[in-house]
């Protein structure tokens, strides 16, 4: 594996290998000494052109717990705010001899573009409305652990029904999850108001619905999506109240869920909008497990990318 740009890049075997290794990495989190020497001497740069708390800090911790040197660069306070282009920023950072670039950018495809400019490994930490592959991996890790409480040997998600509900159009998390859950063999149903269902969704390997109440009782897990008001330019739904009534995981809907069915949310949550406090704090909520899984999964991915032979880390383009 050279880069991780899309959940579609991962085969079932690669996905299983990442999740299995993440189980080992999760053990490190429970130790008094949270440190492995595996990436000693490697340098990882977190290049975040968008604000982030959990993704950036979990990539930072993952790198540090593997003994890599980690540098954080955010758009604010860097030359990006002086008008430097993406290409120049990426080439400048790569010229310092880094081994991996973790890139979050508001434009879909930015990490993929950067991967063509440099020889360093590139990890997509969220690009526009395109993809967020490590989020999908940590969701799969969390769900696999949950499913394994009743089926200890479970490896694929064949026969499992996962409902992804909410603002699918603007959600890179939904895209990556659809791709990865398909690889794992789950049946995925997308639920969204027609205005928030992406065009071309009929070509995706999913079933779609606009009736949350009809599909929820059948689900083994429901992934709620954040209503991304910052990405919405127009009126996608009449009022927040109407959205909640139609597509929020309310107390009443929580009661209609199959016993043992899991609740996920990539965070940050809009409590009271897409998810009620009862659902967010319910016993079946895996939301904090997802956060904890983030570090283990990112350690696993960093090791898979950087744990092997030395790769030349020089920029290909001219500065």
């Amino acid at each position: 594996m050279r880069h991780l740009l899309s959940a579609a890049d991962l085969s079932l075997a690669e996905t299983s290998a990442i999740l299995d290794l993440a189980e080992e990495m999760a053990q490190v989190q429970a130790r008094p000494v949270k440190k492995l020497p595996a990436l000693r001497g490697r340098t990882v740069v977190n290049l975040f052109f968008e604000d982030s708390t959990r993704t950036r800090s979990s990539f930072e911790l993952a790198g540090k717990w593997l003994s890599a040197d980690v540098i954080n660069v955010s758009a604010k306070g860097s030359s990006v705010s002086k008008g430097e282009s993406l290409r120049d920023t990426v080439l400048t950072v790569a010229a310092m001899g880094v081994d991996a670039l973790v890139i979050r950018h508001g434009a879909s495809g930015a990490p993929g573009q950067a991967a063509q400019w440099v020889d360093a490994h590139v990890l997509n930490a969220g690009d526009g409305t395109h993809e967020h592959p490590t989020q999908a991996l940590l969701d799969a890790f969390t769900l696999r652990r949950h499913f394994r409480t009743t089926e200890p040997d479970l490896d694929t998600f064949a026969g499992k029904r996962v409902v992804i509900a909410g603002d699918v159009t603007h959600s890179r998390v939904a895209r990556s999850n659809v791709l990865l859950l398909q690889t794992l063999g789950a049946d995925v149903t997308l639920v969204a108001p027609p205005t928030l269902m992406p065009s071309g969704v009929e070509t995706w390997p999913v079933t779609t619905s606009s009736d949350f109440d009809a599909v929820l009782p059948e689900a083994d897990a429901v992934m709620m999506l954040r209503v991304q008001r910052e990405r919405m330019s127009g009126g996608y739904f009449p009022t927040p109240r109407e959205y909640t009534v139609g597509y929020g995981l309310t107390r009443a809907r929580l009661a209609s869920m199959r016993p043992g069915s899991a609740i996920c949310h990539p965070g940050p949550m809009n409590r009271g909008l897409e998810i009620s406090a009862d659902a967010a704090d319910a016993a079946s909520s895996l939301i904090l497990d997802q956060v904890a899984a983030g570090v283990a999964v990112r350690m696993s991915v960093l090791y898979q990318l950087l744990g092997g032979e030395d790769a030349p880390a020089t920029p290909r383009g001219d500065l």
Partner: protein
Amino acid sequence: MAEPATTTSRLVLDADQIQRTCARMAHQVLEANRGAEGLVVLGIPTRGVPLAERLARAMADVEGVDIPVGALDITLYRDDLRRHPTRAVGRSRLPVGVDDAVVVLVDDVLFSGRTVRAALDALGDLGRPRAVRLAVLVDRGHRELPIRADHVGKNLPTRADERVSVRLEETDGVNEVTISPGWDGAGSELSTPDEEGTR
């Protein structure tokens, strides 16, 4: 992966000899520790794990008490990660905490000593054992670090390019230790140093 002993390889230990060797090492460990008190036996994957289980079983038969046995994967502690393709990481399994325990590390072949160094680093991150002892089935020499085993099943003088292969029922379907020339008779390059006893 396991190849049967060929005309070019020489049998060093057969199944009975391996069993007797394990039994002898079990007695030696118990004698050095003056009993089973505080012992934790940790095998280094791959073949160190079944050996550790055999050793713990043999000691339990003598002492009549259960001896905690586990596995200590050292992949992430290797100092040659950057010289090989990404290695698959195995599973560590600690039966109990190692704080204040007498940990017996078990491996099949002791060669350069780098695997043991990695294991000591890994142990240090898991806790602070009272003492660490090393038990190996075969010591073939050619150390690159100042490390020696406390309990050795068989000292086997070798040339550096020879290959020592330990095969166990649990992993390979057969119990034997063989020695053979390097791949081309003039030195070999292997991806799993120590484990197969050559590099």
